[in-house]
């Protein structure tokens, strides 16, 4: 029979990646003497090796075998756990991952890296590479039929190991034609028989094309509990066979065959032979697209709660339709109740469905301990990573896109934040730098904080650099946070020397753009000498948005709540008209440019006078603007529909949604609108605007 193994491969792959993660985090925390941990690392390697062999990924098996051997020596205490070995093992984990990913995607892999690491492992093991591991699949083919004489004398205790001679004989019978003679001469008198013991022995004659190894294999499990002689009966060979093989496994002196009582002789005819498939060709996983996007693992509890909710929805629906079939006004109460219930069900259902997309942020955080470990070695600094809140849940899409920006922020913290140990000690700090990563929910958003207890950001350096790069005027007065925001300007880098870890001049601006693309924002805070803190604010999901509905003319627009600073009614005395049709509104210490929405979108509004008009102050890209609207409506969650998929991209609009009454409302894209306003202002070619607006010029 054949079994299609490919169906188990996805499960094997998933398991292997989990195993690799376990190995990685285990190795990072490995201390000498922690035998429980080294055992679990060993088990992970062991499972990967076993699975890989079974499912035909031989390169993985071979490589992992080396890793396993090394781990085994550590586990048995034959080898000390050194940093060098841990490094090699960590590198090996990368290699195994590489191999498994290549196997999954059907891609090529970097065989040089594998070879190098495998050589290092081999050197560490102080022996030549072994290839002994795949022999078990190789079946020797021996086509000529031979006559074998097998003498099988089991020990009395054989049955206690769970072996039963009848099965061994049946297995032999499958190799060819078997003649069995049982010898019961040693059978004691009935009174003396111990029912747990085996008193029989057998002389067997097998005519088969199987090799002597095939026969030995059958007796493999009992070879220590029996006397076994396998000889080829030269006289009876159908064809001349020059070599005679005698196998005398476990007893030094050959005993003569016991043939006193030939009680019965029976011939067991061979059953149809089981086909032995040569399993040397690897079972290749079908090449598939990068599988990260494809699937999502959902907890059974989440699915159960969905099923439960759908059940309730069905009950409510049937109640309502029953009510509708025979309705009069006396049943109005019940109708209202039913509708109320429907609302409740729908809301819960929506929440549950959204929760399916939510994953704990540990999926993104998991790779950071290793990152910090590697960076610490590269930079020669000592540091520790503290992770908090890794169970905080986040939308899968957001998670996938936040990984790279976080990597960059951590690299920055290591490179620019944490000082070398000597400097830290001189400044009265602990020798080890601390980088902490914290995630938590705050008002419908998720906040991720990356902080370090390093040197902090040098305000003057940043300022001077920005002046040098022509980003700001040398005389400008900026608040601390405005200075820190300069870090995110394109092409800004304060590192004295560009290192290979960070500071290639690309990065922080990209980080900010990525975060903004997710509808989030980033804030920096720093205390010189004590450290810096980067705070990333992200929406929980990209599919739903908390919005403020506003009215302009006959249109309803939605402003993302996250970008709203405040809403106010314009008072004339704070208005300032500067040239270029630009009105500024004085809001405490800021001058906020006013963008009348009706002008931007060329529609008619009820209110086109600035005085007393409603102004929604929004912030994007560190820039505040006031949107002039007719009226403020409700705040509600809206489901985002892509405009690009359904129509086409429109500047200033990030998407659309369908409101309760069935009408379509546009969701405003605040950075886009600021850009539109800016272009418009530039077209009218007037004099310079205040510094703040110039800064927006960087956003393109």
């Amino acid at each position: 029979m054949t079994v299609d193994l490919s169906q188990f491969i996805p499960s094997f792959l998933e398991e292997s990646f989990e195993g690799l993660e376990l190995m990685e985090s285990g190795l990072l925390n490995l201390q000498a003497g922690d035998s429980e941990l080294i055992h679990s690392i060993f088990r992970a390697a062991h499972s990967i090796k076993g699975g890989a062999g079974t499912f035909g990924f031989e390169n993985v098996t071979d490589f992992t075998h080396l890793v396993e051997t090394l781990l085994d020596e550590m586990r048995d205490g034959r080898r000390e756990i050194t940093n060098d070995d841990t490094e090699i093992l960590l590198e090996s984990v990368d290699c195994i991952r590489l191999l498994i990913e290549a196997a999954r995607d059907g891609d090529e892999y970097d065989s040089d890296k594998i070879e190098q690491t495998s050589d290092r492992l081999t050197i560490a093991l102080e022996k030549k590479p072994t290839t002994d591991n795949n022999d078990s699949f190789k079946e020797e083919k021996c086509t000529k039929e031979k006559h074998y004489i097998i003498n099988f004398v089991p020990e009395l205790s054989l049955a206690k190991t769970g072996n039963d001679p009848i099965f061994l004989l049946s297995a032999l019978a499958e190799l060819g034609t078997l003649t069995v003679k049982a010898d019961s001469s040693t059978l004691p008198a009935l009174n003396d028989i111990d029912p747990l013991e085996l008193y029989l022995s057998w002389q067997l004659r097998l005519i088969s094309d199987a090799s002597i190894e095939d026969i030995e294999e059958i007796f493999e499990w009992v070879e220590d509990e029996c006397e076994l002689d396998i000889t080829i009966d030269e006289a009876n060979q159908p064809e001349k066979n020059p070599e005679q093989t005698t196998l005398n496994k476990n007893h030094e002196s050959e005993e003569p065959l016991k043939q006193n009582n030939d009680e019965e002789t029976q011939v067991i005819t061979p059953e149809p032979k089981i086909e032995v498939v040569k399993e040397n060709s690897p079972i290749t996983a079908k090449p598939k697209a990068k599988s990260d996007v494809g699937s999502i693992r959902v907890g059974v509890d989440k699915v159960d709660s969905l099923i439960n909710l759908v059940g309730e929805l069905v009950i409510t629906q049937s109640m309502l339709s029953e009510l509708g079939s025979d309705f009069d006004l006396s049943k109005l109460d019940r109708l209202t109740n039913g509708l109320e219930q429907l609302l409740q069900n729908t809301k819960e259902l929506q929440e549950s469905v959204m929760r399916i997309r939510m994953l704990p942020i540990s999926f993104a955080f998991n790779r950071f301990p290793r990152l910090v470990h590697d960076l610490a070695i590269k930079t020669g600094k000592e540091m520790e990573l503290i992770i908090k809140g890794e169970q905080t849940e986040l939308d899968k899409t957001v998670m996938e896109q936040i990984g790279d920006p976080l990597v960059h922020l951590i690299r920055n913290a290591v490179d620019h934040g944490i000082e070398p140990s000597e400097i830290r000690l001189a400044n009265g700090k602990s020798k080890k730098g601390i980088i902490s990563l914290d995630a938590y929910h705050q008002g419908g958003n998720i906040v991720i904080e990356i902080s370090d207890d390093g040197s902090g950001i040098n305000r003057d350096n940043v300022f001077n650099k920005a002046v040098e790069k022509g980003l700001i005027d040398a005389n400008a007065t900026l608040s601390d946070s405005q200075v820190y925001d300069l870090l995110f300007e394109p092409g800004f880098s304060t590192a004295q020397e560009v290192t290979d870890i960070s500071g290639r001049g690309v990065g922080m601006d990209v980080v900010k753009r990525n975060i903004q693309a997710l509808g989030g924002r980033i804030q920096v805070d720093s205390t010189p000498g004590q450290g810096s803190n980067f705070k990333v604010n992200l929406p929980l999901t990209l599919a739903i948005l908390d919005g403020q509905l506003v009215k302009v003319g006959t249109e309803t627009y939605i402003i993302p709540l996250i970008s709203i600073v405040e809403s106010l009614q314009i008072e004339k005395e704070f208005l300032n008209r500067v040239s270029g049709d630009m009105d500024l509104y004085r809001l405490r210490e800021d001058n906020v440019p006013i963008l009348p929405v009706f002008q931007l979108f060329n529609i008619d509004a009820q209110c086109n006078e600035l005085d007393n008009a409603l102004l929604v102050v929004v912030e994007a890209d560190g820039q505040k603007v006031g949107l002039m609207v007719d009226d403020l409506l409700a705040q509600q969650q809206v489901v985002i529909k892509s405009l690009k998929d359904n129509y086409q991209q429109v500047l200033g609009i990030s998407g659309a949604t369908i409101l309760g009454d069935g009408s379509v409302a546009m969701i405003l894209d605040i950075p886009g609108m600021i850009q539109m306003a800016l272009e418009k202002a530039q077209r009218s070619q007037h004099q310079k605007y205040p510094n703040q607006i110039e800064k927006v010029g960087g956003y393109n």
Partner: protein
Amino acid sequence: MTKVLVVDDSNSIRDMVSFTLKSAGYQTTEAKDGQEGLVKAKGGNFDLVISDVNMPNMDGITLCTELRKLANFKFTPILMLTTESSTDMKMKGKAAGATGWLVKPFNPEKLLATIKRVVR
């Protein structure tokens, strides 16, 4: 019907073994480590136990020793799944009362052919 207890901490191997056995007409019960295996063994009769060696909570050798203490499992064939083909490992298994061992990697055909040495 021949009942087999399959004990392995790796889902994919356990699924594979179990699936292979089922498609050959055996009835299988699965356990994810020695501890669960022992509990399940106590809860029913089995004609064969196939167990991994390296597992969390309780390893295969301990499971084997524990099973041999049970009256129901005195003669039950117990096969160990192992990648370690060293004699050391085999001796440990033997000492614990294991019937035989299957060296990983193995394929379904080999699995079925091999277990015929201890059950029908």
